[in-house]
């Protein structure tokens, strides 16, 4: 029996960038939204194994959303990967308490490095060695 595919939730308001990401993540079930207000509803409906989020989202930045997620028992353990053009300005140690497991630069990622990172984070969540 094949292993169940992991579900990823992409939160990014750049539709075209989001399209290119989704195309390179065909080994996962991918859910997308540009709107941080939809995130809790999508979590409830799809139970994502991991969230990939940009920092700047419409009228809000992602950190307010992540703080809210940390305040709920049911959402605080969902691992977050930040994917942003501002990655160079974010220190992972400063944001780990928001559930962020990795910070990737949009200007540097390739499909392969993104998939490697996702797999590492999911394996780590399951208690497996990366």
């Amino acid at each position, binding site marked *: 029996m094949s292993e169940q595919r992991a579900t990823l939730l992409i939160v990014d308001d750049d539709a075209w960038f989001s399209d290119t990401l989704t195309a390179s993540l065909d080994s996962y079930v991918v859910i997308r939204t540009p709107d941080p207000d939809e995130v809790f509803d999508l979590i409830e409906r799809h139970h994502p194994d991991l969230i990939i989020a940009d920092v700047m989202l419409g*009228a809000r930045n992602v950190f307010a959303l992540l703080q809210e997620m940390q305040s709920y028992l049911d959402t605080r353990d969902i691992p977050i990967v930040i994917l942003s*053009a501002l990655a160079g300005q974010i220190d992972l140690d400063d944001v780990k308490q928001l559930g962020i497991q990795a910070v990737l630069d949009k200007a540097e990622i390739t499909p392969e490095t993104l998939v490697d990172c996702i797999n590492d984070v999911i394996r780590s969540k399951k208690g497996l060695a990366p």
Partner: protein
Amino acid sequence: MSELEGSAVAVAHELKTPLVLLRQLTLSLERSDNVSEQLEIIKRLRFTSERSLRLVDSLTKTARLEDALFELEPVQLHTVCVSVVDELSPLAKAHKQHLKLRSIHQPLVAVGNRELLSSLLSGLIDNAIQHNPIGASVEIASKIHHGEAVLTVRDFGSTIDLSDFRALKDSLGKRALPISSRPMSSGLGLFIASQFLAAMDGRLSVQRHYSGGMTFSAHLPLSRQLSLLEV
């Protein structure tokens, strides 16, 4: 951070966004073996590079403003709107959006510079497309209001927090530092629009909508050259 450093950071951030997308689209193109997908990616590459070029062009014009290279003349706002809407409609369509033009008062002749007005309107519409949801329209209107010629561009993006809105209003025309309220934008585009309007004795204003989205308005002096009304 000095004003120069702040501007350099804003320019760098603003140019990085389309460059990041261009790189990602190129990677997708390399991987794709589907012709219709390749054609769609190529179209997006073209629109994204054109967007970057418009920004660079506007930045160049901003640098030339002080040399007074842009003469003021009577300009038919409807003509400018039609031309810019024609140019940007394919971009809106590629984002599954629609540009809706309403010329409420016609003929409407303002005192301005056609080239600056076209760049300013392009920038505002471009900004609106980036913040608008799929399927929505960007509404462009020209009208007379309180004795001024006014060009408005409305998007239907997320509702902006009041505190962010106040910060945005306060910063209009003063600086091009990061504005958290309109991400994907360092505020540079709005700063440029304000500079263009100031060079034409005009000003930029902004309103938010309870139902979502923002309206940016360019206010310009009305022309009193009635003979041009039939142009």
